């Protein structure tokens, strides 16, 4: 039966493909030449990892969405997709290398420090809302991670395309974030009786969401370039880390409805 012990084989092939794509993209620079080949390599890696996820789902007899290790797997998966979207639309030759390195780190953590992957789904998570809620969150996190990378690079060396790209990616990321968050609130109504309870996870989700809305409002208010917009994106991404796993390192996590493990 397919399990976590075969991840290293799939991960090595995927990382190899993504690295080849990233190096080709860097070598091409802004030229369009070989961009199809870059996409082919990128997608081969993505398909190989999808095959692993499908086989793992079959092996576990449940969607792999429960442990932190499983969520890391999805994050690595969506990050390379988000990286490819950014590369495809804005031709940032460096973005693929960044997303490849980040995804590889997540996959390697899963290989060398496997979490306990034998837990079964607790009753609260057995819901129709669970899969779209988590997957949409992961995809939005990945898009917003790209905006963070662009903001970091933009702070060091600004280019006008960075502003446009980060704003577009934030709009896409926030859209997914909103849908995921509101699906969570609809689910909470069915599971616990209230749409919103202000527990630590929900507070940070709302805070992160508002922070990105603050960024979009700020961009709408001040259309010209200034470094504040980049800083807001960086702070918003720090908030996102708090929302994702940061809160579990603080004492208030014990009161959270979102602590299952």
């Amino acid at each position, binding site marked *: 039966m397919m399990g976590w012990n075969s991840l290293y084989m799939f991960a090595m092939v995927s990382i190899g493909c993504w690295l080849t794509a990233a190096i080709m993209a860097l070598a091409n620079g802004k030229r369009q030449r070989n961009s199809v080949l870059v996409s082919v390599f990128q997608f081969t890696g993505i398909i190989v990892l999808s095959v692993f996820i499908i086989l793992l789902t079959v092996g576990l007899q449940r969607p792999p969405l429960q442990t932190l290790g499983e969520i890391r797997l999805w994050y690595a998966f969506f990050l390379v997709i988000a990286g490819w979207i950014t590369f495809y639309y804005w031709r940032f030759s460096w973005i693929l290398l960044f997303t490849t390195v980040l995804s590889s780190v997540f996959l390697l953590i899963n290989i060398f420090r496997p979490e306990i992957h034998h837990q079964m789904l607790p*009753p609260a998570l057995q819901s129709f809302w669970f899969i779209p809620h988590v997957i949409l969150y992961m995809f939005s996190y990945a898009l917003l991670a790209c905006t963070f990378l662009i903001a970091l690079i933009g702070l060091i060396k600004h280019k006008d395309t960075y502003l446009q790209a980060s704003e577009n990616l934030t*709009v896409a990321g926030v859209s997914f974030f909103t849908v995921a968050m509101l*699906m969570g609130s*609809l689910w909470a*109504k069915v599971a616990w*009786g209230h*749409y919103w309870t202000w527990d630590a996870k929900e507070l940070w989700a709302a805070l992160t969401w508002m922070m990105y809305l603050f960024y979009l409002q700020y961009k*709408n208010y001040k259309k010209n370039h200034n470094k504040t917009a980049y800083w807001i994106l960086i702070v918003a991404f720090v908030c996102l880390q708090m929302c994702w796993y940061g809160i579990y390192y603080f*004492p*208030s996590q014990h009161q959270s409805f979102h602590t299952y493990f």
Partner: protein
Amino acid sequence: MRISIRLYRCIIDILMKIRDNRVAYKQIGTIVFLLLLSVGLSLISIDIHVFSFPINLFLLLLLVAISFVLESYVFRYYVVSVKKMMLFATFIALCLMFLYWLLHHRMIFSEILPSVLYDFSTTALFIVGFLFFIVMLGVLILRGIKVINKQKFAFLFSHIGLWLALSAGMLGQADVYTLRANLIENNSISYAYTSKGMAMDLPFKVKLNKIHTEYYATGSPKAYAAHVSVYENDVVATERISINHPYRYKGYDMYLQKAGTNTCVLQIVYDPWRYVVFVGIISVLMGAMLCFIHGIKYRTKNDGLE
């Protein structure tokens, strides 16, 4: 040592600026006033149930009226940018949420905190702060609604939805009752307790027939369910309530919260505003989807917000 020197220099710098009249006293005054107001408001606890229907409906209309007056007169005739005020309102909401999270760590602050801050969501500061956000959101909607084009739908759906969900969610709380009922197998009850320990009568009786529990091979729980009967004079219904599958009767939603071997805890929620908030949430969902489809295009230069 270095930090203390820096701090000292910073204070000296501010004092020099004040001496040279380079700092606007008006701004310092405003900041001090806002800080004092915040501290004062945070010490006032509001019992939300005081504003139960129809008072909350009037308050809702009042919010609309304030937004309308602000949009029609204040922002039009005075040089105050709506976008700037909305940024300020978002900043206030962000600060309030961060403060709320800090106050989640009650065990750390337990000796210092006044008891009113134990539930920050009931303090006047939190409520007034969010009402300010709702009013500014209303102004933004009223301003934006005047220039309607195809790309404006994302804006309208998301903003109106958010306004509806926030205002109905907040003011609707006045009519919401969250009760807990402890049930023992083959016994029925006709009352449940509020979070403050007050017993409230239910318009029906609930009887626990049986608890059903399933475990995985590893020993971790797989499913809980409570088989209950609801009575008025005779048995009205016999239902299976489990986590994620509540049962609704006469506007009361019954959720299984805990299950033991022959006891269970039901959470009973009475929420007459649930559909209003639901419409708001669906509207924001549609707005977010449209926003993604249109991408950046909806953020046109002539958005009518200035």
